[in-house]
């Protein structure tokens, strides 16, 4: 069972992700944007994987991904996005899950990557 960092500015979507991950036996920690995610990790929080929203205030998904790749190069990052990301962004992430979320797909990427 894994510990997942949910980076999502919408409270209701963050809660949805948390419930489904917990139902599958995982534990979660949440950050409201990219900057908070980096702070959480810098504060010593150990996670197996990051689910990263793309459009967020303060630090967006793509910006946070760039930072994460430098500070935590081995940490798997899956983008959870309402828009189709451009290829460059897609190639930088370990996976992309489209909103509305197909949870079979999401949970299988968690099992594969985390």
């Amino acid at each position, binding site marked *: 069972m894994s510990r997942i960092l949910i980076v999502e500015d919408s409270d209701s*979507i963050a809660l949805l992700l948390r419930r*489904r991950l917990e139902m599958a036996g995982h534990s979660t920690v949440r950050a409201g944007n990219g900057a908070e995610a980096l702070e959480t990790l810098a504060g010593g929080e150990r996670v197996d994987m990051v689910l990263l929203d793309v459009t967020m205030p303060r630090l967006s998904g793509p910006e946070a991904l760039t930072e994460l790749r430098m500070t935590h190069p081995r940490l798997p990052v899956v983008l959870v996005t*309402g*828009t189709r990301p451009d290829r460059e962004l897609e190639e930088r992430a370990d996976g992309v899950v489209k*909103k*509305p979320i197909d949870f079979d797909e999401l949970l299988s990427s968690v099992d594969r990557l985390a």
Partner: protein
Amino acid sequence: MGPKDGNGEERAELIKRSHDALPSAILTLDREGRVVLTNATARRMLPMVTPGIELRPLLEGMTNVEKVDRLLHHRALVTFAPEPGGPELHWMAWEMPGPEEEMVLTVWETDWNGDLNENRAAFAMAASHELRGPLTTLQGFAEILDIQRDNLTPQQVEAVEIIERTARHLAVLVDDVFDMSRNSFGELRLNLDETDPGEVARSVAATLEPRIAERGQRLATILGPALPTIEADEARLTQIVMNLVNNASVHNPSGTRIEVAVRRHGEAVEIVVADDGVGLPFDDLDDVFRSFSRGETAEEGDRTGSGIGLTLARLLVKLHLGEIAVESQPGEGTAFTVWLPVDRRAGLEGAARDRS
């Protein structure tokens, strides 16, 4: 000595060179409306506009009086080609500060496809963010209930199934809108055919009448005499009128009267969708055509949802080489007017001249 501390002559020369470097044409008018200053782009783009000439009559020779009024009096952005068959230019007038009532006009040329692509990208981005989020939540939590259906009563299971089904339907609609905005607009080909605009109005009325009646509103259709057929895409024209009527209905209370009038005006067909409702909550009425600007009084969870309809309507009107305008007074109502050229090749300019 740098220009900053230079003498008046050097500064004037610097201002002139900056002026000439701009890609837009710049026309400065005195209080009598005579051109007193032009920049290099203006001299190239608008060779007929020479210093000393009175601008207004010149513009009236290029387009209709109404547009010239909108430009010079209402400070609206207008678009027209100064020469028949020449490039379309965008015109904007600005008052200059000071007591002399001078005015400065900027005129620029945009590549039509580039303009559309820009709209399309902004549209897709906004739609994506606004719609997919709530949809994700709705669908996701309904699924959670469905997983726990053993704990639910049969009626609750039924409710959950309906929510899930509706969410899936919405997801399809959202995808349609995306595909349209993302992939189609630049290359969208209208399926042009001889179309009866009166028939379009009648069919929209027939489709929407039951829903409008349910809201306690009335819908009237008024068709003028001798309506010509126009070269249009019937499905798209239906979509335009449907959007306008639907918009009038959902944003107004019970008791509102909505009227769809179709008539011929010279070489144009005019379709007016008017209501006697609450009016639009916008300071700048052109905002209604921008995606996701729904006005300050639009309620959370509003029945229409997206705010795409009017943007889409305007794009479709433009593709028909037509024009759309809106007038609205708080407490008195709103009227959208669409003009479509009867002869698409002659365009709306000829038709518009007849109108004024």
